[in-house]
């Protein structure tokens, strides 16, 4: 009984420790942006970040991160933040492990042995596989099936216009 209880306490302590570690994902502001009281553009401004500021990412919601920084806490657009360390990574997808919004631990890509990657040479040497192609084609979903599936997930289609290219790269189309 007591043993069970102390085991539970230990487990809780462990989970708490893990939770803290996971929540402590860091990031850097890519550009100057406002910190908002809530995750939308019209929300009250509660502070501001300048490019290069370090932040701690607490939570994700839609396109927004809730962050803590020496300049204050608030919500900032996710595209203004680069998660984790700079480009030189350690080889792990560190960021995936990070966010406290239910992403805990499940995201690490485990490199299993036995299956090789797709190198350019392997792609070039690839031989047409009709059997697998037929299989793909047999697994297709009809438009109606997809619509039912969307409804089950409460996905509601809506009208949204395409984005145009940012000015600097215009003329590409």
């Amino acid at each position, binding site marked *: 009984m007591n043993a069970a209880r102390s085991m539970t306490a230990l487990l809780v302590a462990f989970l708490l420790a893990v939770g803290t570690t996971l929540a402590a994902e860091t990031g850097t502001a890519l550009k100057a942006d406002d910190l908002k009281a809530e995750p*939308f*553009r*019209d929300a009250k401004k509660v502070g501001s970040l300048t490019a290069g500021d370090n932040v701690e990412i607490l939570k*994700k919601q*839609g*396109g927004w991160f809730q962050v803590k920084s020496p300049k204050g806490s608030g919500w900032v657009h*996710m*595209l203004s933040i680069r*998660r*984790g360390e700079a*480009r030189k*990574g350690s*080889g*792990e*997808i560190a*960021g*995936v492990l990070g966010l406290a919004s*239910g*992403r805990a631990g*499940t*995201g690490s*890509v*485990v*490199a299993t042995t036995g*299956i090789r*990657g*797709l190198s*350019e040479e*392997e*792609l*070039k040497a*690839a*031989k*047409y*596989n*009709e059997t*697998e*192609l037929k*299989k*793909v084609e047999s*697994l*297709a*979903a009809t*438009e109606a*099936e997809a619509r039912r*599936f*969307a409804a089950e*997930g*409460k*996905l*509601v*289609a*809506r*009208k*949204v216009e395409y*984005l145009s*290219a*940012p000015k600097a*790269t215009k003329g*590409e189309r």
Partner: protein
Amino acid sequence: MVSMIKKALFFSTLLLWCSGATHAADSWQDLRKAIEQKGQKGAGSGQHQPNPGGGLDLGVLRTLTGFSQQEEVAIGRQAAGNILGAAPLVKDDKLQKYVNRVGRWIASQSERSDLDWHFGVIETNDLNAFAAPGGYVFVTKGLYRSLQSESELAGVLAHEVGHVIKKHHLKILQQSRVVDMGSKVLTQKVGENEHIKNLIGNGAEIFARSLDKNAEFEADRIAVIVAARAGYDPFGLPTVLQDIGHVAKDDSRVSLLFKTHPHPDDRLAQLGEAIGDRLDGLKGQTLENRFYRIKP
């Protein structure tokens, strides 16, 4: 290294451009005829019949890219079969069916809902996704495993759908076709499959080629919008890009992806600029709970 690749790309593009379209016409007619014959024999799945009147659609398509939809599907089918030769489907029908439902719903929000869309997860630990002309889209198991929600999957598929609807690969093929003309391969009277094979190149090489980086940025912009139209949180793809940005450049699982795409950070920056405040207040479903997880 990157600048070397860029330079090489620039020169090869230049070369393709300079080769001009002088010999293109006859051989091209050959190929088209061959594919049309193939289509009439009923090869391929649900291909669209040739437009008997040569009406506006086909006319417009040809003006834009030189390929009819039927040709496009025949080419895509060959390319898809080739990549499956390199990496077969993950043997999990539930997974494949799930990905097809998400993908089909995404594709239905695009202007090419009429294509017969096919999606698949292929057996490799690489982190990548591929689109072949005509609506064949593949995600690697490595990338799939790194995803956390249906909206992230939707974002990845929507990027590939973007390539298909904008015919980015077809445009590359059209350029290489011009080079092929010089090699007389297409002018020889060979079977229709040979024509398509010659066009695509060795195996699934087409998937190892880089598209113009603006084509990648364009597909990213399309992806967030199409995902939003489908009712998803539009930030699925940006989330995936942020994750991929963390993988070390020398990790072999991303070598092909990083070789053929701009760095995720650059893609995010471009996307951020394009989005601005356009998607503010556009909420959507992330569907973490429904997301199908591959058994370990």
